[in-house]
């Protein structure tokens, strides 16, 4: 019988001689098949699959192949030994007969039968703990903030206590690439570069999501976002995995300035990646409840007529679009303070200036309106715009 063992933390060894299992601790001769090829599959969200190919010398009969993984977090139940088909000319049959697990050892022994002496190319696959990945992004916006250059980075953290001299990596997105990965090393690789990606800069006020800048003065926060659609050009073919994004802007002097950073969510193709950069202080929005009337229909059944008023000033030199977001439930609960119910509000839009919510971004509760704001006038004065949102809330009790 032959016996093979992987050494280092991960080792194989081959022992020659027909010895039963119990006699294994005696004199043995071992061969050490080296790794021919390693593939590290990082496509699973939680688990990392490592596949390695080795050429194992076998004698005719039963061979014992030891595999050990001291000090690494291999899931032993995930271990698969596959014998790759030999070259066509050599009729050489190899089969795994059984696997034995010795007590209190991070090792196993495959009993491999061979129809003749020769070498077999085997592929060993296992789920390895401690080898993780994360994604991050770096974007540089142009001077005009119309397009940006987006780079996607993969960071591989090797806490698996094992080194791979040369491995082919696959992260589930992007191209496969070959890199060595040392012990306890962190490797950062640029997976993709997307140039000329159109970016939409949005200003949004949303009392529920972003709150007030000054609640006593009814002034809302107006955060600024970059919105990148995962579609068109080189984008849109694969999802963008979640990761931190840092955004810079070309300062026109050959350098760039840091604008802000945010956690980007998982963005499938066709979806939008929205990155919050910071507050826009040059757009002022005052939101007040202008009217709140209650009409009794019958018994304890009421109808409410509500008007929200927005006084908006744009102190920028450029025209911008402001997104006004509202939750009807939050409006209902605030005007019915102290006597809220669990019912979904039943509502109709009245004839305020805000009558056309964006159908793709609105539903039974959320309303989103786009409002175009002119730049401030030549004399420096910002023109105040007043918008109203009129709502009728029916069948409330």
């Amino acid at each position, binding site marked *: 019988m032959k016996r093979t063992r992987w050494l280092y933390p991960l080792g194989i060894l081959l022992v020659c001689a027909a010895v*039963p299992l119990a006699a294994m601790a005696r004199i043995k001769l071992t061969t050490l098949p080296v790794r021919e090829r390693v593939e590290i599959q990082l496509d699973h969200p939680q688990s990392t*699959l490592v596949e390695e190919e080795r050429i194992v010398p076998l004698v005719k009969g039963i061979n014992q192949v030891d595999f050990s993984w001291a000090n690494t977090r291999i899931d032993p139940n995930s271990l698969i030994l596959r014998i*790759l088909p030999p070259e066509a000319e050599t009729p050489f049959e190899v089969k795994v007969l059984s696997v*034995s697990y*010795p*007590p209190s050892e991070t090792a196993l022994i495959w009993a491999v039968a061979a129809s003749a002496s020769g070498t077999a190319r085997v592929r060993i696959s296992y789920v390895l703990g401690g080898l993780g990945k994360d994604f991050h992004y770096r974007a540089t916006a142009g001077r005009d903030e119309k397009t940006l250059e987006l780079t996607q980075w993969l960071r591989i953290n090797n806490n698996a206590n094992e080194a791979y001299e040369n491995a082919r990596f696959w992260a589930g997105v992007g191209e*496969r690439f070959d890199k060595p990965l040392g012990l306890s090393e962190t490797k950062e690789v640029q997976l993709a570069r997307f140039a000329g990606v159109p970016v939409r800069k949005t200003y949004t006020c949303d009392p529920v999501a972003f709150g007030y800048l000054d609640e006593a003065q009814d002034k809302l926060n107006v955060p600024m976002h970059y919105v990148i659609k995962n579609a068109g050009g080189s984008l849109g073919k694969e999802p963008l995995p979640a990761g931190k994004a840092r955004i810079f802007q070309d300062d026109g002097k050959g350098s760039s300035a840091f604008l802000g950073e945010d956690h980007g969510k998982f963005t499938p193709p066709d979806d939008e990646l929205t990155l919050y950069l910071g507050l826009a202080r040059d757009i002022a929005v005052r939101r007040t409840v202008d009217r709140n009337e209650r009409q009794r229909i019958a*018994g304890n*059944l009421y109808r409410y007529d509500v008007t929200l008023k927005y006084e908006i000033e744009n102190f920028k030199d450029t025209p911008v679009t402001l997104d006004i977001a509202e939750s009807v439930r939050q409006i209902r609960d605030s005007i019915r303070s102290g006597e809220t119910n669990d019912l979904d509000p039943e509502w109709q839009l009245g004839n305020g200036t805000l009558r056309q919510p964006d159908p793709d971004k609105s539903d039974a509760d959320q309303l989103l309106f786009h409002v175009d704001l002119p730049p401030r006038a030549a004399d420096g004065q910002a023109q105040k715009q007043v918008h109203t949102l009129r709502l009728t809330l029916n069948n409330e009790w």
Partner: protein
Amino acid sequence: MRNRLGFCLALLAVLLPLGVLARNVDLATVPSRNTVQLTIYNSEDLTLVRETRVVTFKQGVNPLQFSWANTLIDPTSVELKVRQPKTGVELLDTTYPHDRPQTLYWNVQSDANREATIEISYFTSGISWRADYLAIADPDEKALHLNSFVRVDNRSGEDYENAQVRLVVGTINLVEKIAQLAKLPVGRIEDALKKNELQEVRQKAARMMMAPAPVSAADSGTYAGAEMEASKEIIKEGLSEYFIYTIEGTETVPNGWSKRLRSFEVADVPMSVQYRYRPREYGEPLVRLYLLRNDAASKLGLTPLPDGQLRAFRANSQGGLSYLGEQSLKYVPIGDKIELNLGPDPAVVFELSKRKVYRDNLWFQVKGGSLYRKLGDDALKLELESVVAGWDEHTVFRQEIRNYTRKPISVQIRRDYPGDVVFRSQLKPTLHDFQTVQFETDVPAGGKAGLDYEVITREGYNQKQSRVELQAGEVGR
């Protein structure tokens, strides 16, 4: 080799009473095991061991000592039978000495000087087996390669060499754990238990395993460069409510070791992929499943699939594997379906949005009334004090599914609606049960589906039933 099961034939003091055996100077011979058979149950920590030994008896009474120090044998289960010769050798009595734990003595009467084959059987704990599975799907996910393994674990304290191994698939009833019995002296067990009850279970289990261990011809230890060694076959046969897997030949599983053998391997098992939303079974996300059947048409169906962990991979076009996930497979009878839940698929977006809410069919409960009259006016005004008591709540939903995979997908959705509910849609739904609506759709590769439906819940006074009524119709007002 550590063999903790001692078996002695005391040669001195042959015709002396048992009390003499406890003396300090003794001579014994140790007949070795001829055959061992292990029958391992996976539902309980229980293994029936049946071993045969050849013993030379002299005419008269022959004392035998059997001891099992540091093992997990149930002392009440130890049985001695004479297999050869059929007559002339007889077990007279069994004694459990008070001063030596994990030992017993048998007195065997022989009518002549002769060689006899005896069989000793007992229950032990600490040996277990479990099944596990490896499924590798083809890159196009039309078929998969299914491997089934059995893994025998020996933590019993005893090395069993060249044993015939039989594995029982099924759930048997035990009134007492073998591991607990192994720790108690025999007398205490007899006190603690209703003896007949225990006996009954033992006998039931033992009767099923009556077949004696055949003397094995194949011996894995004596392999000497013959032709290509074949994988051991695992013979499967039904037995009452159970299934017995017999591993071909013999196996050696030393104490502390475990050994995994292939039970079967089938390539090209046809399968299909389905996406399912069933929050009661799979939780909130839409999950992807591989569906196949344990039947002959699927190249399976020779045996039920015992409980075990299943690991699923998909072969990629580069010859490598992608890890899909792990799940525990519950016992699958022959002919039943096998459903492998691979978890959510990030390439399929599944979003439910509430489009509109409205209420109608309002009913009031009148709680009383008040009559009002303005000073200086003859007109009276009756005001009823009434509160909303019942209404129909209409909620319009849109279920959006976006498929970013390269293949068309089929999606099945189940949603529970407790209460008195009308489900109105053009989706041709069916009722899975009285309160669960099921509907299906196909989404082309790279395509989208938007499924509109309206849920009308009759609330309060309007609720007359507790069931879902399916209605074909336009959604929304």
